[in-house]
């Protein structure tokens, strides 16, 4: 066996190993909750509050971290922790955190995270209640 065979063998083992483990270590990170943005308030060309309705159909309560993302992923920042009891729909208004400015022309996302699980709501300026 020459070194080329050895190299090809190593690469094959690596590809197969990572692919196989990717199948086994795939995580179902879909959060069993439905979130709908019902209101986005814009002032001074920046998003100030987002009202979101969160439905938790499961029999377990949820303690969610609401995390805001701008279309530039570096701009992610935490908002708040939202508790949603089991089989309940809760509407909460999330204020803009102090550490982030949210220009209203940006397409934005709200991620609701419970441990490794998350659900994402995307909202664009066309959804905003107040004009940009």
């Amino acid at each position, binding site marked *: 066996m020459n070194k080329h065979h050895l190299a090809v063998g*190593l*690469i094959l083992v*690596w590809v197969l190993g990572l692919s196989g483990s*990717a199948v086994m270590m795939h995580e179902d990170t879909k959060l069993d909750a439905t979130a709908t943005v019902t209101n986005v308030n814009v002032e001074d060309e920046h998003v100030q509050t987002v009202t979101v309705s969160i439905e938790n159909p499961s029999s377990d309560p949820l303690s969610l971290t609401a995390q805001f993302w701008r279309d530039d992923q*570096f701009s992610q920042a935490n908002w708040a*922790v939202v508790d949603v009891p089991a089989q309940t729909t809760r509407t909460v208004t999330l204020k803009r955190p102090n550490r982030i400015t949210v220009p209203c022309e940006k397409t934005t996302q709200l991620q609701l995270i419970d441990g*490794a699980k998350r659900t994402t709501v995307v909202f664009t300026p066309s959804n905003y209640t107040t004009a940009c």
Partner: protein
Amino acid sequence: VKIDISGDSLNDLSANLWAGVLAALLFQVGFRVWMAIDPANWLPAIGTVVLYGLALVVLLIGVTGQANAHGKKIAWIGIFVLGVGAAVLLFTKVGSSFGTDAALFNRLSAELVVEGRNPYTANLYEQHHYASTPFPTPKIDGGVVSSLSYPAGSMLLFVPSVLLGGPPNGMITMAVVTLLAGVVLVHDSPAAVAPVALIALLAAGNMLFAGIGGILDTLWAFPLILSMRAWRRDALCRAALWLGVAGAIKQTVWFVAPFLAIWLLQRAPTVRGGLQDIRQVSIYGGIAFLVPNLPFMLDAPQAWLTGTFTPLGGHGTLNPLGRGLSVLTWTGIYPLSPQWYTLALGSTLLLGLALYALYWSEETAWVAWIAGVVLFVHWRSLNSYFITLLPIAYYAMLCQADAIDYGYGRRAIRYWREKGTVDTAQADDRSHA
């Protein structure tokens, strides 16, 4: 039709094309500056004129076939313009706004060091006294990173700025280090390709302005380039010192070490000789790493370890982020567990080491680039990790082609030495005649 281009004309064409690419880049930067034109501020207007004018001059040099002869001058002018741009930015934008939490943490840590305190044991957001707060680094549990997450060298570079009363956000430090990196790249480039040094610094992202804005990767890239420079000259101890300095600034550099160990083993005539070289390099590199870090390691070992390993061991604690395989997870397309990323990182490193040992271990400079490949499979693979590889890759290419121009001073010495040899030989010839 067969096109026959000889080596010289291909060389000329290549240099002229690079001048064209640089001109395109200057047009692009000029366009961005033009977008910022404001009648109340004359700087963008002047900047636009300078950048478009310079682009036309560079293009003219290219189309008239002069780039091979004038490539170095073009690159030096480019560095000068960058320096002026940085100076203008520093004079007009000096303030206490921080582009990244890394820049803020380095500043606050440097302030704590000046006060005689250990920044690794502090919650840096509690020390925060500036008006501007950058975007934090979020954690999966909903919190944010609030402690120093780099080796101590990174923040110690900002201590002079604290002592001298420089701008809090470290703009001057970053501008100086990035410009020095540019100077070394241009200085060591042969004229035909010197404009590429600027392209490497500017094309994928303006590293100077990004540095001023809080992206700190040039801090480790610069000593790494100096290490490659020394390595190419077989100056092992000096190379190890610079590598230790780079590793004392950011963890990315640590991935390079095992590759260099293989190189040292394989280049030595005996295994024993290779091990001796590794020992020597480890001592010099270790000293350079430990000098800035040891006081903090001894003072609070657990805090230093926790802080320094936060980015490396971020699988599962920090939010996934980046351009590499973590895209699968953070977009939700095919989420993979944090453990998978740990496995991918380790196995990719091992595969890389095996392939390096099998094929490429006679060359050393390019391995400085390897961290980018490894980080591609990391839980967090930020854009800056990859952009920073461009100047490093450019320098590695120069090393690979044995094309490093060691400079005006060295050329002058060589010239006089050769002249002396020729004169002596001619004198000998005459005496024999």
